[in-house]
């Protein structure tokens, strides 16, 4: 493997924020299915939220004030729907380095973590403060600290949470699980050997 897990450690993400209001924003909206017709993830960034952007001229991803933002702030159940990893891949390739929201769908959260895109939750009030501050001044500088469990925005702190396993994976650089899973492959073989269906009963 080219890089060691130490090089992959993710803790602090800094930059400006892009607020995206609304609950249940599903993966079909994040990246419409037609862009799944590809054999690489290259070029997905420019199509993120494409249909929403076309139909809503005031969509934040259309707004030049938020260009270059690296922290996406969302409401509830973000990333529901399909299991397409293309959704976090598209966000990451657009330039998003972390997401903060009231809640995330489980598969989206797993997919984001496994590509090194931290998703943290905050309570409704915290999310509202981050959104309001970005809307008030899109140049507000934020720093999300995975280890510190908070986002700092213009001198204010918003507490954030992550599942222990996710925080651990990000901080230790083991969010790309393949190496970890191959670490004790003899144990994988041992499990397969005790399953009656593997042996054909």
């Amino acid at each position, binding site marked *: *493997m080219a890089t060691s897990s130490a090089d992959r450690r993710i803790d602090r993400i800094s930059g400006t924020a892009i607020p995206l209001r*609304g*609950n*249940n924003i*599903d993966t*079909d*909206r994040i990246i*419409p*299915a*037609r862009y799944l*017709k*590809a*054999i*690489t*993830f290259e070029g997905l960034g420019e199509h993120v939220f494409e*249909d*929403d952007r076309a*139909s809503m001229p005031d969509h934040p991803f259309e707004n030049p004030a938020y260009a270059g933002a690296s922290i996406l702030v969302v409401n509830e*159940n973000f990333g*529901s*729907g*399909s*299991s*397409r*990893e*293309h959704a976090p891949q598209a966000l990451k390739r657009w330039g998003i380095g972390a997401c903060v929201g009231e*809640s995330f*769908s*489980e*598969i989206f959260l*797993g*997919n984001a973590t*496994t*590509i090194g895109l931290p998703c943290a939750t905050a309570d409704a009030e915290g999310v509202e403060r981050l959104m309001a501050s970005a809307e008030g001044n899109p140049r507000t500088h934020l720093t999300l600290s995975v280890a510190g469990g908070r986002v700092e925005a213009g001198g204010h702190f918003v507490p954030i949470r992550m*599942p*222990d*396993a996710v925080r*651990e*994976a990000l901080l*230790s650089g*083991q969010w*790309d*699980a*393949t190496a*970890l*899973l*191959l670490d*004790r*492959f003899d*144990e*994988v073989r041992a*499990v*397969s050997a*005790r*399953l*009656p*269906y*593997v042996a*054909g*009963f």
Partner: protein
Amino acid sequence: MSRRTLLQKVWDLHTVRRLPTGQTQLFIGLHLIHEVTTPQAFDMLRARGAGVAFPERTYATVDHIVPTRDQGRPFADELAEQMMAALERNCREFGIRFADLGSDRQGIVHVIGPELGLTQPGMTIACGDSHTSTHGAFGAVAFGIGTSQVRDVLASQSLAIDPLKVRRITVSGTLGPGVYAKDVILEIIARLGVKGGVGFAYEYGGPAIEQMSMDERMTVCNMSIEGGARAGYVNPDETTFRYLAGRPFAPEGDAFERAKQWWASMASDDGAPYDDEVVIDGDAIEPRVTWGINPGQSVGVSERIPDPGASATEEAQADADAGALGEALDFMGFAAGAPIAGTKVDVAFVGSCTNSRLTDLREAARVVRGQRIAPHVRALAVPGSKAVRQAAEAEGLHEVFLEAGFEWRGAGCSMCLAMNPDRLNGREVCASSSNRNFKGRQGSPTGRTLLMSPAMVAAAAVSGEVTDVRRMLG
């Protein structure tokens, strides 16, 4: 031994170890793959010089991008052709079995796994597709994964995953005539919300579920993910075993008898502890129709579209905020408080991994037999697999559909999502037996999807508007 749920039993048996991150390393008994979510996974594998650990536990097919009309190669769509070629190459290179377009076994991945007997009770099953929950109908623990996880499973036949809680959903009573598994799951999602299942596997049981065929149980489990639950399952019973007997990959003879005993032992114990329990009155369920932009936004066919201004309905509460109702009404262009019955439809689609099996086609055909679809409606019947198509043709169902004015297509995902030539145009309204009514899902950014059972789709096709199918069933 303490009492355990099926989920706990399967989980314990498949646990390789606890990872330093706190997650479980879980052995995956069956890995199903298709063309959309795997090319990048194989490339990542190659980039690391890794191989496929257990190619014999992996099975591939092609479904999302296949045209359902003209399947000649190369495909007219160059990108679709590239994806197809990538899967062919990857399966060849890594020695993976592949039900390709030339095979009688091709079809939607969640239709063919069960049909071939690959899907069995007590297994862990993963696939790069959220509707992998379908396979839980057999008492398997089955969930959708992303592309990097597909790479993990290819490389190690295992996944890093967090344990799931179990919510037992008991559906009491008996479903009335014209009420189907689709109506049950739409009711459950309306009740518990589209994110009510986050962190849970749903265990479905009770008389109404036990009376269901395997096809119907698959419909229920299929949409678990639409309620936020990553997995859903039904405890295996005689119905399960009867379905599996004689399937190509099911054990045979004495091995089948031994398998049956083991499968039965994997069911949840009486009195097993659940993290949550919900009871739904099956007798009270009526045919349901979605009116909005997520699968939780449905009403009974005799009911009215919710009014965000009026006192909160049960659905509105599950949906949590009136803003979402307003957004949905705006997008759909429907009036708050209007009856859902009588909503005009332009397209009727019977198909998708939720409802494209033989019994689904039979129920739809029962409604359209001897009728004509309304002149303004475009209607498609799309079997979920080649085997379903052949079985349907053997009973003459294709003639029933064709005579009524439906198109009769080849197997694939078709109009469930916009990755092949079948799609909505403009603001068309589609009565659809699929599972997602998200904005843009069926290929037109402004297209509108009304989810319902195949029989209700058939009724809508014939009358040209949303209609209570119970009035059309003699």
